[in-house]
């Protein structure tokens, strides 16, 4: 019968457990609240129905102590839930550096996954178990959303920027993932499978894909083919910021603001350079928007990341 009538999703990641626990706690609290209201309502409806002879004398006039009491109790309970939920959320949404960084391009209506070694898959995501996986996600068109119920994680994939998400699977197996932001006709079938494998199986899978070039190598080719090295190469005569050791550092922009050089920053520089000119440099970088697709941008980002950078945890 369980196969016909599912009640509960699997719990297959480190991220899933605290979320699941909180959900259960809230279910219990909700049931208690409902039970209280139902019990009171039923009791009063039966006891004080029109023709009953219960006493109606001394109707409570003053209500302030009750009001204050249940307002305070409610507020206290809510604050507990708030703090509990917020602390898990902050942990969930501060993506650490990760053992593996995998790139995702969402495009109507498929998920294109690119491993750093250059392995590519569509609507499937192979990952090793018990390793921290960091996803850098871009959209080629509209807003999508990457959701893995078994891991209790989700993040929208917004065009014009790069979103990051992390997880650590703690069970091997196959787990469903889906797009949860309406993106057009085939939104309902924009789904796939996360395949969690043991480390040796994963390593074997990677080599089985038969790929020659890693993402960073492909990115380096694009970097030269598109003319980026013409200005950013150390031997260039053009005054352009060096990209060695850039990733993860703090950058000072011309308008006085500060940005962390993460994937989203590099994406912005390539596609909207005029608005993100680094302080002290002339605003001459060409605008590549419309000329380079999101998949290629991610490869260039992979290349720049491979040029070294700060080791701290990124937000």
């Amino acid at each position, binding site marked *: 019968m369980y196969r016909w009538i599912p009640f509960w999703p699997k719990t297959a990641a480190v991220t899933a457990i605290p979320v699941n626990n909180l959900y259960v706690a809230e279910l219990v609290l909700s049931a208690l609240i409902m039970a209280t209201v139902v019990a009171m309502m039923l009791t009063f409806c039966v006891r004080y129905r029109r023709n009953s002879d219960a006493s109606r004398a001394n109707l409570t006039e003053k209500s302030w102590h009750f009001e204050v009491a249940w307002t305070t109790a409610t507020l206290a309970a809510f604050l507990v839930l708030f703090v509990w939920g917020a602390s898990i959320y902050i942990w969930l949404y501060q993506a650490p550096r990760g053992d593996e960084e995998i790139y995702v391009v969402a495009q109507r209506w498929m998920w294109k996954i690119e491993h750093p070694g250059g392995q590519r898959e569509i609507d499937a995501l192979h990952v090793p178990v018990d390793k921290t996986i960091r996803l850098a996600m871009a959209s080629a068109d509209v807003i999508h959303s990457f959701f893995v119920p078994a891991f209790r994680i989700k993040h929208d994939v917004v065009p014009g920027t790069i979103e990051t998400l992390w997880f650590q699977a703690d069970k091997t197996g196959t787990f469903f993932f889906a797009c949860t932001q309406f993106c057009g006709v085939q939104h309902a079938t924009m789904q796939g499978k996360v395949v969690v494998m043991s480390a040796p199986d994963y390593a074997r899978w990677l080599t089985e894909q038969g790929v020659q070039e890693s993402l960073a190598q492909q990115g380096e080719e694009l970097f030269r083919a598109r003319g980026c090295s013409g200005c950013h190469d150390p031997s260039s005569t053009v005054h352009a910021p060096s990209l060695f050791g850039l990733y993860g550092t703090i950058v000072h922009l*011309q*308008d006085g603001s500060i940005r962390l050089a993460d994937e989203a920053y590099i994406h912005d520089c390539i596609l*909207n350079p*005029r*608005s993100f000119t680094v302080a002290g440099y002339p*605003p001459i970088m060409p*605008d590549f*928007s419309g000329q380079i697709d999101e998949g290629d941008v991610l490869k260039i980002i992979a290349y720049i990341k491979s040029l070294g950078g700060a080791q701290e945890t990124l937000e």
Partner: protein
Amino acid sequence: MPDSAVLRPDLQYASLAQQGETAELGMWVFLVNETLFFGALIFIYFIYRLTYPHEFAVAARDAVLWCGSVNFVLLLTSSLTMVVAINAAAQGERRAMVCWLIATAALGCAFLGVKGFEYYLDYQDEVVPVVNYLSKPGEGRAGELFWVFYWIATGLHAIHLMIGIGLVLYVLAWKIPRGKITPAYYTPLEVIGIYWSFVDTVWLYLYPCIYLVGRS
């Protein structure tokens, strides 16, 4: 000309005074609503201006400062003439009231005339997004957003002004000849005056947003 003797309140009102106060409250409440309408637009403008200050400054250089400033003076003066007209109504000076109302409407029309001429100049400068737009060097992609804001904000403002002029003409052509504006009850004029001041105030906010960007 029917004299002011018998002006009765509408049936749901107990007195003319109640009707007048209610109409005024209605206009103020409506203006809260309008403030949020223009406010939403100005908010979006500020979000983009704070994100792209340099691009906005470059794009805004093509705004025709003299047109905006002349319009500023015209509209501010028209608010003055409107107030004087209302004052005349309260004193029962019919001729003065009519003259000042005509002046108000005329100044409003002058504003629209200058605005129309400015739109013509803008078209020549190629700052009409989608229709006839040329990106100036240094304004990137965000500069066009400034001009989107310009056309929408000034267009909506102009429509509101046209409605205001229409209301003034309505009072001139319909209410006054029928003796419906008397010193005892000149609320329609007051209500239109409040609306007119609002249209003026919106321009007070649009003017620096459009014409004073990057000119300090």
